[in-house]
């Protein structure tokens, strides 16, 4: 049976069930608002958003692999390319681009042109340290961990803080190969 080619992000985005964009944005806003009320510390909220993103990411990876028909990526460059071109398109309907590759090929930046999470949002003065979209960094970190890549994902530019675009830096820390999980004497 011939191998099925991977599907493009647009094709998948068109074929899966979608939810109203405003509902999504407002729900996310309500979550952040509630976290701020409950936790009060901006750093705590950032951590919690990252953790939530991580829990989403470890499940999201299976859906992504099932729907996109992607076979294993050979190296990190291909992985980042797939995240930007297929992943973001498929789940959020936005196109992302890759820039700032370093010499090793282990760090790159994903630039988002628009971001549905932040429609209608303005950060007040009391929340200036808040990474509003921190859930996205958690999602990427969680998803990559399930495919054996330990990464560190941070926000470099954030439009809510006055920059001109959204930029995420993804750094590959190490690749964890599969090991036989049972001890030999058991």
């Amino acid at each position, binding site marked *: *049976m011939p191998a099925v080619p991977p599907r493009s992000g647009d094709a998948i985005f068109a074929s899966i069930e979608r939810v109203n964009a405003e509902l999504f944005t407002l729900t996310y806003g309500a979550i952040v608002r509630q976290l701020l009320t409950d936790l009060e510390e901006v750093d705590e909220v950032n951590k919690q958003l990252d953790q939530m993103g991580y829990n989403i990411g*470890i*499940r999201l*990876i*299976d*859906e992504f*692999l*099932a*729907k996109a028909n*992607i*076979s*294993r*990526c*050979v*190296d990190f460059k291909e992985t980042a390319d797939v995240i930007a071109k297929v992943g973001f398109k498929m789940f959020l309907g936005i196109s992302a681009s890759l820039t700032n590759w370093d010499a090793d090929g282990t760090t790159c930046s994903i630039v988002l042109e628009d971001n549905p999470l932040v429609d209608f949002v303005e950060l007040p003065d009391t929340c200036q340290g808040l990474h509003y979209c921190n859930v996205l960094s958690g999602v990427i970190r969680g998803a990559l961990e*399930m*495919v*054996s890549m330990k990464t560190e994902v941070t926000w470099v530019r954030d439009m809510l803080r006055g920059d001109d675009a959204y930029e995420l830096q993804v750094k590959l820390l190490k*690749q964890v*190969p*599969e*090991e*036989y*999980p*049972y001890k030999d004497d*058991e």
Partner: protein
Amino acid sequence: MQFFGGSDVSPSPPATTAAGHNANMMYMFNRNGVCLFYREWNRPLHTLNPQQDHKLMFGLLFSLKSLTAKMDPTSGDKGNLGMPQLPGQGCSFHCFRTNTYKLSFMESPSGIKIILVTHPKTGDLREATKYIYNLYVEYVVKNPMYAPGTPIRCDLFTTNLDQYVRSIS
């Protein structure tokens, strides 16, 4: 690949059970060796207790994967046998057949392994295992009550799986 060259006469496919299932049994493992799911529809012979059976199956596949990758005549890079492999390296085997059964295997890059044991005349089951993976995503991964890495206890998944397996040829 066929292990025992011998006779070409294989027993006729087992009479389908009252429920009409076409597969014998199915296993699902995650990357840590936890058996997420085991279902049997037609297995007359039990030789090991369930834990040993699962460990044996997982160990077999782990070794087979490693072996088949190292024997690959087209790949240039050859590490030592037994060295842990990065996902993405090496080829991946997808089935083996004996004179009494056929075992089909699929592994996703996230480490989810699906094993389907059927009668030997079954055709290529790669599409079937992919479909089962999709069922897993829909009914298990998206289920908020399911904790990843634990055995699957989702009725919807089991029902849909049973229904699908009936239609495998």
